[in-house]
């Protein structure tokens, strides 16, 4: 028996996920089983980037996918893809968990020990993404844009916290996030509406 985690062998096309989502919204449990298979490795991988702890990530991934089922009827295809909507739910759940733990730690006045070891965040995520096609687009960002985006997204930090950590004024951080994401969008050829 070997033990290395593996990456999903194949990934469903966004249009397939949209089609499954329409059936899930009408309460089709079989469609949900297929949707789960189509997105769960990406949901789990995203949440684990943020939370790191595998067992906690599994729990939060499950909560996120149950939320997808429960709120499926609220998904509006006019406003974005089903995949984008699902990953937003997953990311939000992970971030909520990080912030709840930060708040608990703050209450117990041991914020320092519980804070995200964020020096690792950018490095680890970049190393992982470097192996993938999106690396070219990430490289097209300025280092400051990349840092602000990855710290916020994978570190679960608010822009205020990112500004604190980097010692950068708030408006600058907001601008780096937005300009960086726009550049990333253009490079990856994402369009909507």
């Amino acid at each position, binding site marked *: 028996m070997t033990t290395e985690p593996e990456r999903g062998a194949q990934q469903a096309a966004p249009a397939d996920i949209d089609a499954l989502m329409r059936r899930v919204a009408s309460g089709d449990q079989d469609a949900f089983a297929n949707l789960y298979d189509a997105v769960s490795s990406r949901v789990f991988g995203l949440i684990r980037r943020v939370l790191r702890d595998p067992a906690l990530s599994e729990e939060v991934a499950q909560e996120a996918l149950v939320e997808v089922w429960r709120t499926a009827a609220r998904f509006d295809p006019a406003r974005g893809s089903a995949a*984008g909507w699902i990953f937003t739910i997953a990311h939000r759940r992970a971030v909520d968990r990080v912030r709840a733990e930060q708040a608990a730690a703050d209450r117990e006045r041991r914020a320092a020990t519980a804070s995200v070891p964020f020096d690792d965040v950018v490095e680890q995520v970049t190393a992982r993404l470097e192996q993938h096609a999106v690396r070219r687009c990430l490289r097209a960002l300025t280092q400051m844009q990349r840092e602000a985006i990855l710290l916020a997204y994978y570190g679960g930090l608010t822009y205020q916290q990112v500004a604190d950590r980097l010692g950068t004024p708030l408006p600058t951080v907001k601008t780096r996030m937005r300009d960086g994401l726009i550049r990333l969008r253009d490079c990856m050829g994402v369009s909507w509406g």
Partner: protein
Amino acid sequence: MTDIHTLAGAYALDAIDDLDRARFAEHLAGCPSCATEVAELIETMGALTEATDETPPVGMRAAGLLAKAGADVVITSRRMESGAAAADTIRQRFGATVRPVAMPGTAEAASLLEGAELLLSAGGAGIRLVPQDAWAERSGLQAAADVNAVPPLGVEGIEVTDNGTARHGVTVFGALGVGHLKMKIHKACIARLFERNDLVLDAETIAEVAQGLA
């Protein structure tokens, strides 16, 4: 464009607190071009998940459940350190002991299978781990399964579609055969989740659900 619009990036990244999020959502409702921009930025971050997808380690899960059920489980890794680390993780997660063994290459597969009743291959996709002559016609070996679907499979001689197929005196399962059973368990688990709102299914509970289906 108002000043609040510069929050579009932070909003798409979930990098805002609840108050800012509510303010920005209100702004979005009255600004169609902003809504389009935000939708595109969210899609962009969603596309990054392609690069971070990950499956919880199948081998560790199976090893932990089997050991907890009383089986004498050996896990192999190329290097002893990673095997020992995996055994540690399994002990913490399942409270069960498994024996790590180094298997530097396929040549060691036959001797490691000495006395084995079950072989599960859950290594990296497209990597051959067990040659056919290591397992075929081996007395005592009852079943072999390979959860990879990318050729070459980990266990030489198993086909992805095998589902309880008899080959060389052993009952074998390929990834699609395993997947067929997995889908049945999966649907049973989903049905279970719909019974209650506060249920989290862990590996042990899912294994019980699976045994209930058998």
